[in-house]
Each structure stands twice: as C-alpha cells, then as structure tokens.
C-alpha cells in the first residue's frame, strides 16, 4: 500500500515536525490547533480497532471519559500528580478494554458495536449519578495543576505539544501495527474471520489486543482533553457524538491506514471551523450527510480516493513513457 518515496517513520517525523511550527505561526488559534492534533491522535487510536481490526466501536467516548475522570479525580481527590495519574488511568483503561473485549469479542458481528454504546452510556449514567465522587451532572473543574520542570500545564502551547506527542505515538503505533504480523492478522480477521482461524489466528485474542492498545491511547487523550477543558461534565466526555466524531474522521480519511484518520480529523475539523458560524447547529446534521455519502460513494475514504487517483496518474505517465 506504500506509494513509494519516504519511509513511513520519516513521513511521520515530517508531519510532526511541520505541525510543531503551528504555535509559532498561528499562536492566536492554539485552541483550534490543539483540537486538530488531539482529535487526529484519538481518531488514529480508534482506527487500531475500528480500521485495522474492522471492529466498529461506537463507544470510544467511554475511554475519553474514563481518562478525563480517572486522571482528574486522582489529582483532585488523592493529590496524585498527572504524570502518575495518567498511567494509572491508562492501566484502568487496559483493564476495562480487556474485560469488555473478552465479553464481546467471542461473539461476532454487531454485538460488539452494540455493547460499545451500552458501556459508554452506563459509564455516563454512573458519572452523572455518583455525585459524591464525580461532582455529578454539574461537572468537575481542575482548579490547580502541578508544574513539572516549571511547565504550566494550563498553558495552551504546552498542551499543544503534549497532544502532538500523543499523535506521534499513535501514528508510530499505527505504523508498527500495520507493518507487523499482528497487523496482517488483524486484517485477515477483518476480511474473513473463518479463514483467519484456519490460518491459526485466534481472532478473539487479537481483537482484544487491538482494543486494549486503542483504549489505552484514547484514555491518555481523554486525560489531556480534561486538562485542556479544565472543566467538564459527564454529558460532554461520555457523549455518543464524541464517539461518532472519531469514527467519522477515520472513515473520511480512510480506515486501516496510518495517516487516514489524521487527514480525516484535519478535513472535518477544518470544515467545522470554517463554517462554524453558519452551521453551528447543523454540525451533526452535516456529519450524518457526510457519513451517508462516504459510505455510499467512497467507502475507502479520502486516502483511498487519493491513492486511486495517484495510481491513475502514475500509470498514465508510465504508459506515455512506454510509447517509443
């Protein structure tokens, strides 16, 4: 699937390197830049299980919410600084993903997608009602944060680079998965689970692994999101629409590709930002229309479209060269 040229790791480095200039060039729109990079990272993480393994999760908000609440509560309630809180939250995410995957991946088809919504919804209801712990529907705010190495974690620039770091990690993981035997197994499961079993692959186990990887990265993103918001409520972080947004970014960009979800995140968020005043109310309506159109006419996403176009151009040129 590589269309020649640079080694993928160099491409990742190039992308991250270019993005690193964002705060210098567009210092005034750091909130937007943060969203771009964070959502690219989240969509790339989603794609590990949704794209590579083909298991449609419509409940990744469960991990975002878990990351947000776990890291925040460990800090505000127990005084555990975020650099300890986030790994603990990630471990919790791994436990959640393993248990959840263990229950649902033994079954095929839609059960997993159904369960993802249910889990996110149950967590939202619990966060809403367990007010003593979570602050309930009124939400929770982060008033102060420790400053490691004198860095102000409330600073937008610091947050941007943290999100960029997460994106780099997510892209590298995605590339590693795609280039490994594990990735090939996941694709085999996605294409035909029975045949993959005939090859000696244990589908349930591989799917759980992909899910844990995806969940852990998403939890980290959720913790960062919480710091960025510094005030959030269950409705905001466990929202089904948040989950759908990640799915949509991956579809638009191209599922099961390294850079597809990032491209999708940039396109969708750029679109949303450009038309924010016009379509503030309509964004979900537009999302719906985009999903329907993409599924119907471009199931491979923009990356797939671009690759086809590129191949056509290249083959055309070769054909011309071949003419004596």
């Amino acid at each position, binding site marked *: 699937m590589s269309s020649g040229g640079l080694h993928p790791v160099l491409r990742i480095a190039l992308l991250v390197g270019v993005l690193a200039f964002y705060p210098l060039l567009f210092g005034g729109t750091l909130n937007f830049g943060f969203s771009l990079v964070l959502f690219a990272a989240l969509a790339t993480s989603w794609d590990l299980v949704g794209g590579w393994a083909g298991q449609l999760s419509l409940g990744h908000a469960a991990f975002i919410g878990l990351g947000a609440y776990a890291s925040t509560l460990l800090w505000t309630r127990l005084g555990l600084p975020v650099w300890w809180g986030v790994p603990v939250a990630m471990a919790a995410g791994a436990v959640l993903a393993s248990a959840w995957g263990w229950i649902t991946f033994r079954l095929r088809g839609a059960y997993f*997608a159904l369960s993802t919504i249910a889990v996110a919804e149950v967590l939202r209801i619990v966060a809403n009602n367990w007010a003593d712990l979570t602050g309930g529907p009124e939400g929770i705010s982060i008033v102060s944060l420790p400053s490691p190495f004198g860095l102000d974690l409330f600073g937008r620039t610091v947050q941007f680079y943290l999100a960029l770091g997460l994106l780099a990690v997510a892209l590298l993981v995605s590339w590693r998965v795609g280039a490994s035997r594990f990735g090939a197994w996941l694709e085999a499961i996605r294409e035909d689970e029975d045949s993959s079993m005939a090859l000696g692959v244990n589908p349930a186990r591989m799917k759980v692994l992909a899910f844990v990887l995806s969940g852990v990265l998403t939890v980290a993103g959720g913790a960062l999101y919480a710091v960025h918001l510094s005030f959030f409520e269950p409705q905001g972080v466990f929202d089904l629409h948040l989950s759908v947004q990640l799915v949509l970014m991956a579809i638009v960009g191209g599922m099961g590709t390294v850079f597809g979800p990032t491209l999708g995140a940039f396109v969708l968020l750029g679109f949303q930002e450009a038309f924010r005043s016009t379509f503030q109310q309509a964004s979900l309506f537009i999302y719906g229309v985009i999903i329907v159109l993409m599924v119907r006419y471009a199931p491979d996403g923009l990356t797939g479209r671009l690759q086809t176009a590129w191949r056509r151009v290249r083959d055309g040129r070769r054909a011309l060269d071949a003419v004596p």
Partner: protein
Amino acid sequence: MTVVTLLQTAAGGILTGGVYALVGIGLSLIFGVMRIVNFSHGEFMAVGMYTAFVLFRHLGLDPYGSLLVVIPAGTALGVAVERVLLAPIARAPEHTAILMTVGVGLILSNSLLFLFGAHPQTLLASYSTATVRLGPITLSFPLLVSFGLTVLVITALYLLLTRTDLGRAIRATAQNRDAAELQGVDTAWIRTAVFAIGTVLAMAAGVLLLPLLYVFPTVGSTFTLKAFVVTVLGGMGNVVGAIFGGLLLGLVESLGASFGATNYRDAIGLVAFLLVLLVRPAGLFGRSRV
C-alpha cells in the same frame, strides 16, 4: 413496600414493556431478514412521535387516530430509505450498514431539531391524566390504550408473518436467503418490505408513547438502546423473543426504579444487556429466528 404498590409497579412496568416490545420487534425483524442492525430505529420512533404531535397540535387529530396517517407515512419512509441507501450496500461488510444507519439517524434527529427546537414538549389530550381503577390498582388510561393497541399491532404482524404469502417469503428469506431466491422469492423486495414494516412498527410505537412521554429531538437515541436491549434479551432476530424481552425490560426498569434506583433506570437495562451477552449471547429464549 406493600403488595399493592408492588402490583401497581409491576403492572405499569408490563404495560410500558409492551410498547418497548413493539420497538424491539421491528429491530429484530430487520436484523433477522436483512442482517442489519438498524442504529436509526429509535430515530424513526421519534419521527413517529413528532408526526402525531404536529397532527394533534395543528389539525386537532387524536394521537391514536394519527396512526392512520403514520402507518402509510412510515411505509413510504421505510421503502425510500431502504431503496435509496441500504439496497446499494446490501453485499458490503456488516459495519458499512451500521455506519449508514448511524448516518441516517443523525440526519433524522437533527432534522427534528431544526423543525421543532430542542426543548421537550408534551401533548395534553383530554385523557392524558385519566386513570382506570382495577381493584386496588390504578392504571394510567393512555398506557392501557397503548398496550391494547400494541397487542393489536403485534397480532396483526403475527398473522402477516404466518398466514400470508408475504409472511412466508419473509420467513424463508430470514432462514436462508439463497434458498428463498431459488424458490422464486424476490429477496431484494422482501428486504425493502421488511425494512418498511420495521419502520412502521417503530413509528407506531412512537405514536403510542407520545401521550406518556415528553418528546424532544434526541428522544430516539434512548429508544434505539432500549430496542437493542429488548432484541438481545429475546435473541437477535427472534421476534417472539423480542416480545418477552420488551415485557421483561419494562418490568425490570419499573421495579428497579421503585426500589430506589430511579436515576439508574436507564442503566438497569444496559447492565442486563451486558450480563445477557456474557451468559446467554443467543438471548434468553433459545436461538430460533423469525
């Protein structure tokens, strides 16, 4: 808790559960025949609610009477969505259809948002608060009517599936699509018919729930989840199972809420759903389909 309150709660739960069953049956039927999990099912229900709401407010049509409009409207909507959006991707992988219905659901719920605004509205018919006394138990009159109509609709569906050629063709398609095709069943048309029936059932359920609930544009997503729970409890694709699944969900929710877990009402069903997935993934009532 006295015996009377317990009976009262249980009766209310079963009556509500009947309407849940109606939502669930449509979803189960669609899954059984089309192998598609319709993530826009609750949104169709919301469309039914708003249709009845508008007819009541502007034309003074009785909510139950609006079923006469909603049923043909639902048929048309179901046929259109299936023909235009689902039929072309019939052979695509499963997640494609899920995404498509998620998209349709978003479009529907946000169209309702544009048209009617986000605030919850309620319909006050003359009988909205009327009650019927049955010995020591008091039951809400609209809930009773809704339950009665639900029984009627389910009976009609049962007769359709068992006594007509269309029903036989639907069951044949659910059992084995290729074999049905070999027997001369036009399975593409059957899929359209089934999606239309499912849409009608969802929209009718919306009408029946209207006198009991606040209506707001995103009311559907809760019911999509409830329909999933009902379907999984009864076994995916098992229509009779869905009836029991619905009654069970209504009962469990209502009893759970009266035992002090009011705020967790919606979570109860979801936890039950996850437990059933863990213990009996084929549903509580075996594994037969349609």
